[in-house]
């Protein structure tokens, strides 16, 4: 098993390096540099050129790349010219918001997927199963942003059950009970919208897994030994099907990333996705690069985590 993990880790590093090179090249292709935003009549063109030289902006690309990576390793993503503050500080607030949103989404995803998948698999080809299958079929074809818009329209505006934008009601004192409740309240609708769509693939997977396992010999043996029906499902079948699902959560990260962009935009939720969209519209490229890099690395590490868990759970993967 260690051999597999080491080999998998060896693939991860080139991936991260390639990602950083890609983002760096993208940054080079973006118009303007750190000094384009400086519109100061006291700084002449010659002085700007001199500043560029001193900041290393005229250096060959490999030196610039090394400089950039060196900064990131020390937690320096440069300056945001729009917010006039270091990107790292800016990211801290947004990252926490996105983190909570993702956590809630994952929580809801699994809370819905597991019972739905089990019911659907256990009572397959009943009316209950076909309504769940119908839901997954529709959910699979519905784009997240349309679903989120409709959720906002119905529950945010028409029924008024949830706040329609922001991450917290302004004016509340951080740390107080009201503050926490308000935060939770703002999270609920975006997280639910994302989870209702995201859960679909897990439900489908769990269902087909259970339908398959039902006919395996160890299940027949369990039944023959006189295990009760609920014991057969809860102890034998469920345990077998649950582990791969637990392992998939690393892969869910890439869905969460594209999901947060849409959902944060629709619900006006100030997280990384919204920051990314705002920054790209205002051409605040140091922020854009930082967000893409962080999300890219998160996706790479998520896949790594999933692969490792899978290899522990399922020995067949290791042998390959």
């Amino acid at each position, binding site marked *: 098993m260690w051999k597999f993990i080491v080999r998998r880790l060896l*693939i991860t590093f080139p991936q991260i390096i390639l990602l950083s090179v890609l983002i760096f090249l*993208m940054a080079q292709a973006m*118009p303007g540099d750190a000094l384009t935003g400086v519109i100061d009549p006291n700084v002449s063109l010659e002085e700007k050129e001199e500043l560029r030289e001193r900041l290393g902006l005229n250096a060959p690309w490999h030196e610039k790349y090394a400089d950039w990576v060196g900064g990131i390793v020390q937690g320096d993503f440069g300056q945001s010219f729009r917010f006039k503050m270091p990107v790292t500080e800016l990211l801290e607030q947004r990252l926490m918001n996105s983190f909570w949103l993702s956590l809630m989404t994952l929580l809801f995803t699994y809370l819905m997927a597991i019972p739905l998948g089990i019911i659907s698999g256990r009572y397959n080809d009943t009316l209950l199963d076909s309504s769940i299958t119908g839901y997954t079929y529709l959910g699979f074809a519905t*784009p997240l942003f349309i679903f989120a818009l409709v959720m906002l*329209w119905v529950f945010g505006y028409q029924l008024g059950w949830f706040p329609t*934008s922001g991450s917290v009601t302004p004016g509340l004192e951080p740390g107080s009970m009201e503050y926490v409740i308000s935060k939770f309240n703002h999270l609920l609708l975006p997280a639910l919208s994302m989870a209702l769509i995201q859960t679909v693939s897990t439900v489908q997977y769990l269902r087909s897994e259970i339908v398959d396992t039902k006919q395996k010999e160890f299940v027949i043996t369990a039944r023959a030994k006189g295990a009760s029906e609920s014991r057969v499902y809860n102890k034998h079948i469920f345990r077998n099907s649950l582990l791969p699902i637990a392992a998939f959560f690393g892969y869910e990260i890439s869905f969460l990333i594209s999901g947060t*962009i849409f959902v944060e935009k629709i619900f006006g939720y100030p997280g990384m996705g919204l920051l990314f969209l705002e920054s790209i519209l205002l051409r605040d490229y140091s922020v854009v690069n930082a967000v*893409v890099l962080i999300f*890219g690395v998160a996706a790479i590490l998520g896949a790594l985590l999933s692969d490792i868990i899978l290899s522990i759970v399922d020995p067949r993967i290791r042998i390959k």
Partner: protein
Amino acid sequence: MEANNVNIVEQTQDPSKSPSGLRILWRELVRDKLALFSLILLTLIVVFVYGVSIILDQDEIVTVDLFAIHEAPSEDFILGTDYGGRDVFGQLIIGTRNSLTIGIAVTLISGIIGIAFGLVAGYFGGHTDNTMMRVLDFFQILPFTMLVIVFVSIVPDYTILAFSLIMAVFSWMGIARLIRSKALQEKELDYVQASKTLGTSNTKIIFREVMPNISSLIIVTMTLNLAANIGIESGLSFLGFGFPESTPSLGTLLSYATNPQTLEFRWWIWVPAAVLILVLMLAVRNVGEALRRATDSRQRRG
């Protein structure tokens, strides 16, 4: 090559031989009522949208009219007007046409990249396959939506072709993976070995012999991809990184709903577009699912 041709002719004439792949696909489609209905609906939409948009003038529709801002549906404007006084119904038709066109273009381009990549990796196997799959893994892990948005905003002369290319470059991996695993199985079969022994070149075996044999898989995957691509394109246009407002897509109409006033009170601007996207995606997917069942003889209904 000549021997091949003779074979095909014989097959279509002899009823005792198994039916051709395309015929199986078609038979399954007709058996599945939902898929057949979807196909008819799709054909109607396509004919209507492309037909009407010949008469409609895109420039006229997207011209801002300040005297007709946000009008409710009336006799003049069947679905009202948007914040620029533009006719929503006209935009809906042109938007559907643009969304469909771009969806098809992206599906074709990413399909060509993915099929070539998958065939080559699967056919040669071994080290070639290993290296190519590492490249594929890398592409698959990239944050797709973000990279497309970044590229869209930094490309200097931004056209529909550029947009399709950018999307295709980041979305060929799924089909490539499928084709590769199929090609891995296919290359072990006798006809490939026989061709190799006869000295047929690899290029010819890959594209003239292996590819036709997995054509049903290609058709199925591309149909399902088309549904996904329509959704992705409208999502990007919704965020403002697809088409400009002068070339409306279905996503453009939905993006007006980011204005809370429009979302809450002017449903006629965004609800029809949302419904149309859903109908298009579901219909294409229904057809695709029926085709997928047809390629797996255990799941066929007919």
